[in-house]
């Protein structure tokens, strides 16, 4: 059983330039920031290292940080430009009973994160959901399609903070 600081130190020595930092400000749990293009490598290390054994990915959540600048579109709607989208990984070890949270941030305009499909199979649908809701592209994911929204949904990614819902979908009025 290790606390997050120890895990952070361990990761820092193993992957010097991939681990970007640790955020201890949050009241409940520290978050380790990781480079989005290297997350698979880090995940593999976390899973297979005998001192860590993070064999279970509890949840993978996409987040729209909404930290860009608000701009007006040509037709007057609010848009967010710049800033980042993030993905949080909550890991747990069924063996050693410790937990850790990882975070990767990726630019909003071209959000690309490496998939952890081959580390934790459970991430398959979680990543598809993050793609569906935020438009985050998971590199090397075998089957990156929409999962909750219809496959032919064209109006964008609904959980982004600047999402605008369409008036009609297949002839059905959407707003109340």
């Amino acid at each position, binding site marked *: 059983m290790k606390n997050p600081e120890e895990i952070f130190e361990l990761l820092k020595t193993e992957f010097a330039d991939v681990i970007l930092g640790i955020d201890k*400000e*949050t*009241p*409940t*749990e520290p*978050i380790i920031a990781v480079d989005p293009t290297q997350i698979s490598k880090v995940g593999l290390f976390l899973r297979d290292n005998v001192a860590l054994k993070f*064999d*279970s*990915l*509890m*949840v993978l*959540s*996409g*987040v*729209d940080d909404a930290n860009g600048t608000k701009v007006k579109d040509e037709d007057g709607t609010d848009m967010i430009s710049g800033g980042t989208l993030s993905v*949080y990984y*909550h890991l747990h070890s*069924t063996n050693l*009973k410790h937990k850790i*949270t990882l975070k990767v941030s990726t630019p909003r305009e071209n959000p690309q994160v490496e998939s952890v499909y081959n580390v*934790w*199979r*459970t991430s*398959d*649908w979680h990543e598809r959901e993050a793609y569906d*809701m935020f438009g985050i592209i998971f590199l090397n994911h075998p089957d990156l399609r*929409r*999962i*909750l*929204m*219809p496959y032919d949904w064209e109006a964008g990614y*609904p*959980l982004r903070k600047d999402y605008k819902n369409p008036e009609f979908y297949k002839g059905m009025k959407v707003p109340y």
Partner: protein
Amino acid sequence: MALKTETMVLNMGPQHPSTHGVLRLELDIEGELILGVKPHIGYLHRCFEKHAEAMTYPQVIPYTDRLDYLAAMGNNFGYVTTVEKLLGIQIPERVEYIRVIMAELQRIASHLVAIATNGADIGALTPFLYLFRDREYILSLFEMTCGARMLYNYMWIGGLSHDIHPDFVRKTKEFIIHFRPTIVELNNLLTFNKIFIERTANIGILPVDTAINFGASGPVLRGSGLPFDVRKEDPYSIYNRFDFEIPTGKGLVGTVGDCWDRYYVRVLEMEQSLRIIEQAIDKIPEGDVHSAIPKRIKPPKGTVYSRVENPRGELGYFIISDGNLNPFRVKVRAPSFVNLELMGELCKGHLVADVIAILGSLDIVLGEIDR
């Protein structure tokens, strides 16, 4: 000349009697043999996470009811403990005891539906109706407490919406006396029925390492033999005060981790829930269930992930607060969502009829899969 053969694609759902709602399964079959199963979900995507961002913290609670609508108390419980963790407030003892009793009653009610539908999928319709009859008993207990049968909005941040009814303790004890023989009856009628065992033993075997890698939790994981229960692993509320066991799959009639084991874990869990209720029901301390409810819920900036053991598995809420009245982001780790991913893995090499048995043993609720 060789005959040209091709595999048939069979669409099961979204309207199908045993997909437990609006799941769609795309089966590649050769005769009756399954070559592959692709679940398609999202037919009940009700935008929970968008609503959570638009509502204040207490306003989200009714929406959590509607995630796993068979275990609404459990969903409330998970959400309020997460927010309380973020707020860092202390809850009165009375509230904790009542919450645990409610959650365990809900677990029994939910497992009753799970067992009933699993049996009905395999063709035993009578146990289905018997178990729904017993479920009504629990629902009437909930109804006398908070006025609703299914979706309660009962647990509030820091307290409860209503105190329990004066008759609640007596009726709950009556229920326990009534319910113990029902489990025996169920075992005679369905669990150890030869045909039921034939249909579920050695079907859909899930090895424990696969289960962990797929993130399975709840009875699905325990059926594979790993005694993992958030109530023991990561005790929340006052679960560390009670004495109960974690039933696991033992491969009693087949291999460890088959459909029957997952089913039987649920039966045994109902007994354990009764034990917890028995321990808690006499110890409910006096107090005011409204005293700790904050007037204005405005958590500090930060993130929190907290999980509870719902009937279907590990229910987690990931909340990001930006210091406003509304959550910035709420992500639900729905146990059924994760468990359903196993479908493709479990069904390979089985027959069409087994798909139903496997799906029934996973016990999914589309409300929390699609959210």
